């Protein structure tokens, strides 16, 4: 494998992509001025609602889609150049394969395409199957009998066979049961520890939060948030939940503080509201029993961004 040419594994600047469909070839802008970078050695989550442009971006990176304008580089090479794919392993969303082959035969086929042969090919297949907990009887059955979860594991196994520098996974956890999700999550983390950069899209935001170094959120073809999970959630402010020993009358509540269903619990929208409520309690001799701060989750922020885009 050729040495990494850049500290940035993915560079995307001002990417625009238009689809043309129907008899009139009506254009639809799928990606609007998309820009972000993925550093080598990181796990990068790509989230957004259905139809937001996640798969389109991934297919541009893998050279499956052309783009209108902008700059896209994978390890310093344009995805239009076949050489860029020497560094990439890719598993599409809901992977489909030649169903007349068994899982092992399919892996041999893809392994040969990335230049493996003989004992090295067999040992690499064994390694990939071990990593994904797929080294079971069913791997020698025809693919047409596979469940969605089995197919997903084979899809990821074929993507990692060539020991890629960049692993691109489109919804790798869709169709998996909790055990399968855990296996894939662990496999991603193990590969990342071995130095593989992971770029993946997912709807399962709790998984994204737990394993990604950075996240980009795409809504309606535009990147609306980008950064570490902490950066993104903290940029939306922190909410405080305060419980007092005595109830406070609604009319007395300071600005920015709202009551909850519980008579002694209050939500402060920000730091200022929290300070106001604490000052009020101090001056009125009301004891504070408990104070928690709560950041919005990625799901809260994504829901808010979708609503904003719809509006």
């Amino acid at each position, binding site marked *: 494998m050729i040495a990494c040419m850049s500290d940035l594994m993915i560079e995307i600047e001002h990417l625009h992509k238009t689809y043309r469909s129907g008899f009139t070839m009506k254009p639809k802008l799928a990606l609007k001025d998309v820009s972000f970078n993925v550093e080598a050695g990181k796990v990068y989550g790509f989230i957004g609602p259905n139809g937001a442009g996640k798969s389109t971006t991934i297919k541009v990176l893998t050279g499956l889609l052309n783009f209108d304008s902008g700059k896209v580089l994978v390890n310093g090479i344009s995805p239009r150049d*076949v050489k860029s*794919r020497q560094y990439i392993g890719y598993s599409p969303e809901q992977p489909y*394969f030649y169903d007349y082959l068994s899982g092992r035969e399919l892996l041999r086929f893809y392994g*040969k395409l990335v230049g493996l042969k003989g004992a090295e090919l067999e040992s690499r297949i064994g390694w990939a199957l071990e990593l994904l907990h797929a080294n079971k009887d069913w791997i020698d059955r025809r693919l047409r009998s596979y469940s969605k979860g089995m197919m997903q594991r084979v899809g990821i196994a074929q993507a990692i066979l060539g020991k890629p520098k960049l692993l691109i996974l489109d919804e790798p956890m869709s169709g998996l049961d909790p055990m399968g999700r855990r296996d894939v999550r662990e496999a991603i983390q193990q590969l990342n520890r071995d130095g593989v950069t992971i770029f993946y899209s997912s709807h399962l935001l709790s998984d994204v939060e737990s394993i990604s170094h950075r996240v980009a959120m795409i809504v309606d073809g535009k990147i609306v948030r980008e950064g570490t999970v902490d950066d993104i959630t903290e940029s939306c402010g922190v909410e405080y939940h305060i419980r007092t020993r005595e109830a406070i009358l609604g009319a007395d509540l300071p600005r920015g503080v709202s009551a909850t269903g519980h008579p002694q619990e209050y939500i402060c929208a920000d730091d200022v509201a929290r300070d106001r409520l604490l000052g009020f309690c101090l001056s009125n001799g009301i004891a504070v029993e408990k104070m928690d701060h709560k950041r919005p989750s990625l799901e809260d922020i994504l829901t808010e961004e979708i609503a904003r885009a719809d509006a």
Partner: protein
Amino acid sequence: MQTLKHIGIIALNTFRESIRDKILYNIGFLAIALTLFSIVLGEWSVFDRAYVIKSTTLSVMSLSGLLISIFVGISLVQKEIQRRTVLTLLSKPISRAAFIVGKYFGLLAVVAVHLVLLTGIYYAILWITNSSPTVSLLTAIYLIFCEMAVVIAVALLFSSFSSTVLSALFTLGVYFAGHLSDQLMEQVKFASRMGELRGASSVILEKAAVVIHAVFPGLYRFNVTNYVVHGVALPDMYVFWNSVYALGYIGVFLAIASWWFSRRDFL
């Protein structure tokens, strides 16, 4: 070197895929049945038995090869796109041209195996019926193979940018144009000599005949059944130049198919 390896791997997989296709078996069984039926036709016919067996079997080879080339050929690329297997395949470090050429050679190998199988049956029938098998029959079969090699390239060209149904129609169109272009040219020349073509429409007709003759592959060149069944030996240079002719068209069609395919988006 790497590209050649990729072409070989894709060709082998295409061959495996095609020999599992039910259409192939239907066409194959029909071809074998018709080949065997040529013995009965030979008995019934008022013509020489050997002549009937030879001409019928060569026609069966040509027709069944055509059906395989079109119906298996056009579905090869379309199936990859519709089943989305193309996404994983083209994300590997292989060029789209290698994909097209690999598909081409995979199907070419299927047609070759089909023709070899029919040739074996054909020669067995000729031997059983004492119908004097000749080497020139092999030349005719080789030229059928060359013709099919061109037709597969045409089918792949169309399937690289259009739907299965349209690809089938376009390929059939090229096949018939390729077989009739010589006759059309002759007819137009004859009519012109006889003074039957006058006015602007005649100029358009003449030009159209010239264009069709020049652009479409002259598939009539590969049909030598009438010569070989009558024992006429074909000059070696005829076979050589027609092989070169076929290679030229195949190269051009595959180059256009690869170019077009490399511009495609895969959703």
